[in-house]
């Protein structure tokens, strides 16, 4: 699809216009960090940002979300019967989402959109979104997207991609949704003839700037039970404090809990983010816990992302290489290192001292 050039002085105006149709979300600086926030009248996304501290996954999968409502008052009709809460299907757009975070939605979609069951909460929210991505000219040192099935200019999962070309923006529509958004902004649709070359040049510079990599080629052929029994899990998990920061900040983690919350005689059934890092996540009512030790839970996180997901969908690892878990882990546990360790694991070569 075609690329348009936007004069930077025109940018804010166009964004402002789209607010009559879309509820907008974009990166906003709060103290030191950027977060995705609703953009009210006059508010603009901060396009000078690197990436947000927490991923924008909460715009599709909120940290806490009501599913049903009910009343427990036996005098009321329909007491104790769960009722669906109408969902917001109005159009929304995220401006400036990074390609990794957008492609993470596609990866998570495999979990929520299956032939047998469709998750109406996730899908309704996702379908109501238009994703206006923002290519990364200057990736961070912890980004390893290019070897995690993604990249700084990766287009898959986006409706349009915006490239900062110095004095102007280049904006490329990728889907009809993206076209519609661009239309609503009313930017002059001049199509510079050198746009494609400019983008290619910036893209190749950005890709070369990605300094860290993972190897994933052998994961598929590793035996699940041998990897599971590998001797390195205790060591990897040693310093982990099971804080859950890695899973909460990750755009590709989706696990959740379901809880009933009562207020007097009324209540809502909620769903809340959960984490495989917590012992309660898998604790049976009998007290038995199949992942009772810290090392079991750390192993679950990495095995899920780097082996079970790979085997289940045959579509790469459950990680887009955004590097958040690496930057935020208080004890410096590094998925790149673990991934390479799992990938190169050779059970035959592993002779443990007896």
């Amino acid at each position, binding site marked *: 699809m075609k690329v348009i050039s936007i004069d930077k002085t025109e940018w804010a105006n166009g964004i402002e216009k789209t607010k009559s149709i879309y509820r907008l979300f974009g990166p906003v600086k709060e103290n030191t960090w950027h977060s995705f926030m609703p953009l009210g009248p006059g508010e603009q996304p901060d396009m000078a940002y690197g990436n947000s501290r927490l991923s924008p996954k909460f715009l599709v999968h909120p940290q806490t979300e009501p599913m049903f409502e009910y009343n427990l008052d036996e005098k009321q009709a329909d007491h104790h019967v*769960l009722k*669906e809460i109408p969902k917001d299907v109005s159009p929304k757009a995220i401006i400036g989402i990074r390609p990794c975070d957008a492609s993470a939605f596609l990866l998570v979609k495999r979990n929520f959109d299956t032939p047998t*069951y469709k998750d*109406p909460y996730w899908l309704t929210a996702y379908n109501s979104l238009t994703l206006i991505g923002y290519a990364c000219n200057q990736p961070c040192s912890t980004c390893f997207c290019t070897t995690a099935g993604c990249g700084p200019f990766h287009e898959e999962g986006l409706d349009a991609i915006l490239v900062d070309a110095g004095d102007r923006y280049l904006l490329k529509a990728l889907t009809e949704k993206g076209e519609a958004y661009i239309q609503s902004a009313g930017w002059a649709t001049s199509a510079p003839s050198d746009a494609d070359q400019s983008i290619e040049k910036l893209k190749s510079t950005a890709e070369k700037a990605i300094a860290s990599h993972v190897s994933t080629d052998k994961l598929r052929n590793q035996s699940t039970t041998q990897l599971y029994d590998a001797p390195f899990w205790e060591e990897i998990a040693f310093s982990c404090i099971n804080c859950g920061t890695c899973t909460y900040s990750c755009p590709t983690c*989706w696990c*959740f809990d379901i809880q009933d919350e009562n207020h007097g005689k009324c209540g809502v059934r909620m769903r809340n983010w959960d984490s495989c890092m917590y012992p309660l996540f898998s604790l049976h009512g009998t007290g038995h816990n199949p992942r009772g030790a810290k090392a*079991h839970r750390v192993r679950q996180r990495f095995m899920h992302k780097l082996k079970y997901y790979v085997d289940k969908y045959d579509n790469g690892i459950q990680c887009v290489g955004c590097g958040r878990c690496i930057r935020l882990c208080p004890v410096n546990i590094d998925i790149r290192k673990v991934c390479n360790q799992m990938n190169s694991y050779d059970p035959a070569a592993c002779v443990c001292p007896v």
Partner: protein
Amino acid sequence: MQNPYLPYPVKIDEIITETEDKNLKTFKFVFINPADEQKFAYRAGQFAELSVTGKGEIPIGIASSPTEKGFVKFTVNKVGLVSSFLHNMKVGDVMGIRGPLGNSYPWDVLEGKNVVIIGGGFAFTTLRSSIIYMLDPVNRPKFRDINVIYGARTPGMLLYRDELAAWERRDDIHMHITVDATTDPDWKYNVGFVPTITEKKAPQADSDTYAIICGPPIMIKFTQPVLDKMGYGHDHIIMSLENRMKCGIGMCGRCNVGKEFVCKDGPVFTLAQLNTMPKEY
């Protein structure tokens, strides 16, 4: 879009205390909207989420059989938050059922075969469903010999005692009921642990004989070597797993064993399948 988290509203129709310690009760539910019964069409071995409004949901095996119409039955052990609350509910109370969930016993494979059912403790619920299903006059000709080995600690801890006695009197099913120990002089069945009785009473293995085992981990641990010794192939040993669950539809991420979700890809697996999976249950 069909909401797979929305339970069918049901009313408690009957509550039966099953065991002498009163920790196990069978709940019979009827659907408030009669059309929901059709939508809840299930197979023996599946489970459902019992939704206690205001408390939460628990995954429970379906104890009634698809051949029993007009109601569904579940037998619930009193364990924690939701199951204890449910134990205090009354006939007429309204709650919800979500399902049916999970795969089931492999009825297509079992057709035309000998079936050996081995159960222990209160994990006999979906086995009851299976027995009632196979004994239905329409279905009985589809199966060959049916053997049932079922044990509990004491006679008073056996589930469905009236039905067990009725099955004992039939000649198209071989019952081997046992208890760990008893002081009851009128006890006329076996005394001994399930693995021991299995060794004595289970038919020899052949390619047309399948064993379904459900019970506490300790029973399974000691029964499996017995079946191995008798020559049962691991693809002829069928088990049902339990893991903590919430969604029941493979989405919330907690019940996995390797890449399989117990809720959606299970709960029923063959031992041959389990051998290739991490032992995380």
